[in-house]
């Protein structure tokens, strides 16, 4: 459409104005408020014992969730693409389910299953704390990150088909050899992409985790819980800004990684 000059200009001004008010200014402002007192202040704020332990806990959760998602994600994708069984459509729907569930609802569901009064409450009463412990936070993160690896690996499996695998089998490779030498290398970029999404979401998850965490500083606080606790409980606004900036840095890193991986995927 040939838009007149003034019309084009006003559309541009409205669109950019909206983005600046909603996105640009708040982000710049928080960066300015974080770094205005100097880099030293920022570093001191993100190196307090509570912050270090929050970072460690977040990384620990990532370290548990990622391998589980990789193994079960690839197996699930294989079953969904290659398997011919009743209820495959149902499994497809279940894999997508976490995207439609509110994080708080995830937390409530886990409490009702694993909590002291829940279906598996006997475990809790026997002293194995799931809710208000690390297993609860891991389960919450697993729930919300479950679809990523499956959904990134699945299209690649569709695309590569089974010709190469069959060729390898004809040449005498056994199932494991075929998987390690043919299937897995073909999946690598899709898998990496899925892992990046999983890591980003695991580090950033808040609603599901706060429901199942006891939230003690230095014990059961993840990075996102730290941001919340500093702002609400400690009235430490600067500390919240600094921790939020740290998380924002990780998010931007994810964005960059994703665009690099996307280019790689398209060329290989």
């Amino acid at each position, binding site marked *: *459409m*040939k*838009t007149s000059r003034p*019309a*084009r200009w006003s559309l*541009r001004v409205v*669109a*950019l104005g*909206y*983005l600046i008010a*909603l*996105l640009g*200014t*708040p982000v710049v402002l*928080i960066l300015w*408020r974080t770094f205005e007192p100097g880099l030293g202040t920022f570093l001191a704020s993100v190196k307090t014992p509570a912050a270090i332990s929050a970072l460690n806990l977040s990384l620990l959760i990532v370290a548990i969730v990622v391998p589980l998602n990789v193994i079960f994600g690839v197996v*699930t994708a*294989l*079953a969904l693409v*290659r*398997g*011919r*069984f009743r209820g495959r459509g149902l499994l497809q729907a279940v894999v997508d*389910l976490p*995207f*439609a*569930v*509110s*994080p*708080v*609802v995830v*937390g*409530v*569901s886990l*409490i*009702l*299953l*694993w909590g002291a*009064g829940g*279906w598996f409450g006997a475990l809790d009463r026997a002293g194995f704390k799931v809710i208000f412990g690390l297993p609860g936070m891991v389960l919450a993160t697993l*729930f*919300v990150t479950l*679809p*990523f690896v499956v*959904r990134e690996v699945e*299209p690649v499996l569709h695309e590569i*088909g089974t010709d190469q695998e069959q060729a390898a089998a004809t040449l005498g490779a056994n199932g494991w050899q075929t998987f390690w030498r043919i299937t897995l290398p073909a999946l690598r970029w899709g898998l990496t992409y899925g892992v990046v*999404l999983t890591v*980003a*979401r695991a580090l*950033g998850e*808040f609603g599901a985790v706060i429901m199942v965490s006891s939230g003690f500083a230095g014990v059961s606080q993840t990075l*996102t819980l730290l*941001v919340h606790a500093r702002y609400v409980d400690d009235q430490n606004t600067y500390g*919240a800004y600094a921790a939020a900036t740290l*998380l924002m840095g990780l*998010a*931007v890193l994810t964005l960059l990684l994703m*665009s690099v991986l*996307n280019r790689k995927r398209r060329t290989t």
Partner: protein
Amino acid sequence: MTATASAGLAGGTHVSPAEPRPGPDSLVPHHAPPAQRPSRGRPYATGLVTLWLSVVVLLPLAALAVTSTEDGWGGFWSALTAPSALAALRVTVLVSAVVALLNAVMGTLIAWVLVRDDFPGKGLVNVLIDLPFALPTIVASIVLLSLYGPDSPIHVHFNATRYGLVVALAFVTLPFVVRSVQPVLIEADKEVEEAAASLGAGGVTIFRRVILPTLAPAMISGTGLAFARAIGEFGSVVLIGGNIPRHTQVASQYIQQQIEIDQPVNAAVISVALLVIAFATLFLLRIASSRSLRRETAS
């Protein structure tokens, strides 16, 4: 970056009409793969997958559903219709609808400017659109509070108001409409618009009669996904919303409160209500998208 992939980052659901590959959502009909070698059958793999999905996803949701009816249907009904519960649901749906409409208009406008306009820094703006999906929701909350909260340098105080809710939800749902309209606009046939213009149609007429019908399916799907995401949102509204019962308390905050005061059945009932609203939205979207697909193939 594909919107489909990033949508899930923040827990959203996404359907991208311009994307042929099966995206991470149940809305896109999953195309059956071309008939490959009949599987030799790996029953243990299928069993393993079923077990995994059950433990991680299905059992918790089953516990939720069963708990919600623990006090019978009467109990379910009275928990659902408790005044503060109804108020929370009403605020949630109302604010989410406003945000979804805001997204429909502004998202389409932004997509238009990104595709048809040219200005220095456009590439950067294009990348920034995805930021809300990559940013943890609690960070979104803090970021918005720094401008619209108590320390606002421009003296705009949205904290503990419904405007605060709108701003927070508009922030986290920004990419949905932009990213679903953008590819359609890129593919759209400019010649039809030019033909309309040469026949004397004005800008508004062309937009209404030519562009809008092309974009409508993408706009509807983006708007619906933004709505589905908004009703369950927690992290981004938890700080700026203020959690004032019957005013700015959204359903997710009400659920959290019920857990804190040890009323798990109430929490489960409202959780089920939220799930039903989300599923109904996604179901309607699926019907709409398959209908527009059919119309496309018919014409």
